[in-house]
């Protein structure tokens, strides 16, 4: 949401109130899909009690589950949320809220770092996460983790072997013209939108719209 809808360079500026507003809007129209509220940066880094309050707020806004980033370091939180009845979708590999530590949106888990990503995935499973996002890691590592875990893996830039795949709607529809390289666009709506607005402006300036 932060980068494709709110115009931010990273996901870091997204706030709890923006998350609650978006979660509630999605929950109002969804009929059968599971709604997962993504916990924004800062909402679970400032103490576990604060994190719990924020997770509860996201569920009360209409989400069925929350997602948070990190491996072993967030396992205490995952355990606590799960025990409180809040399903947690974990997220390891290239976790966008750690972009400043990574020095950019760079592939993680290459070479010796693979063992850490795999250990993080095992840790979040043991802590009670119902599924784990594997973002931007080598495809063979994602395949290995997917086979090892009992919970489902959801890949984004992690090859075809994951149990399920993420694709950001704006990227899928071609609304985001700066999409990551692993994205496949199934439409190119940015051009269509631009053409529609140009036609509208032309009609107004030509006097063709509105009609008399």
């Amino acid at each position, binding site marked *: 949401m932060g980068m494709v809808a709110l115009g931010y360079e990273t996901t870091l500026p997204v706030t709890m109130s923006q998350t609650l507003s978006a979660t509630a809007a999605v929950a109002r129209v969804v009929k059968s899909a599971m709604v997962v509220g993504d916990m924004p940066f800062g909402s679970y880094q400032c103490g576990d009690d604060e994190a719990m309050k924020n997770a509860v707020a996201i569920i009360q806004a209409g989400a069925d589950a929350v997602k948070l980033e990190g491996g072993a370091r967030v396992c205490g939180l995952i355990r606590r949320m799960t025990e409180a009845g809040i399903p947690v979708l974990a997220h390891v590999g290239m976790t966008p809220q750690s972009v400043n530590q990574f020095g950019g949106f760079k592939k993680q888990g290459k070479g010796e770092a693979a063992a850490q990503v795999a250990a993080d995935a095992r840790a979040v499973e043991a802590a009670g996460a119902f599924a784990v996002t594997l973002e931007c890691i080598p495809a063979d590592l994602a*395949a*290995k983790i*997917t*086979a*090892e*875990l*009992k919970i489902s893996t959801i890949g984004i830039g992690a090859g*075809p*072997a994951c*149990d*399920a*795949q993420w694709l950001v709607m704006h990227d899928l529809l071609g609304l985001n013209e700066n999409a990551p390289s692993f994205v496949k666009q199934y439409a190119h709506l940015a051009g269509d939108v631009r053409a529609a607005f140009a036609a509208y402006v032309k009609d107004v300036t030509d006097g063709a719209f509105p009609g008399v």
Partner: protein
Amino acid sequence: MFYSNSNLDTIEEFEKRREAAAKLSLADGVELIVDDYDHDSWLKTVAAGLENEPEKGARCAKCFRFSLARAAAYAAAHGYDGFASSLTVSPHKISAVVFGAGEAAAETIRQTHPDGEVPEFLRYDFKKGEGFKLSVRRARELGLYRQGYCGCEFSKRKGAEVC
């Protein structure tokens, strides 16, 4: 246990794998049903025009659909509630593609039996939870033949992955 392997390039390989399936069915006390071996039909229906596709490509997806259609037809004809595929145990098989093939096979049966109860495809991923490792251990315990290639002549090419 429904054994259907018309993708195998030789009858000898079909027999080796059938014997392994027979040992497993005996050990687990489940019935083994052996489908006809018809590699010529597989070559015409699946491989024609896709001979140069890489492993995990279009030929493999079509092959899954071929075998799972036979499993679905058998399941429907014999009153089974559902069917799954052991293809998902392989780390070299993309489970989502297997699931797509299984659901397409179930849908075909549904369309041809509009008023009857038809078997559902069960999206069971046998590789999950170290399933592949468990399968290797079980094969070792039972002394089962372990294949060195997926099955068809094209999967034997240099660089192709074993299953």
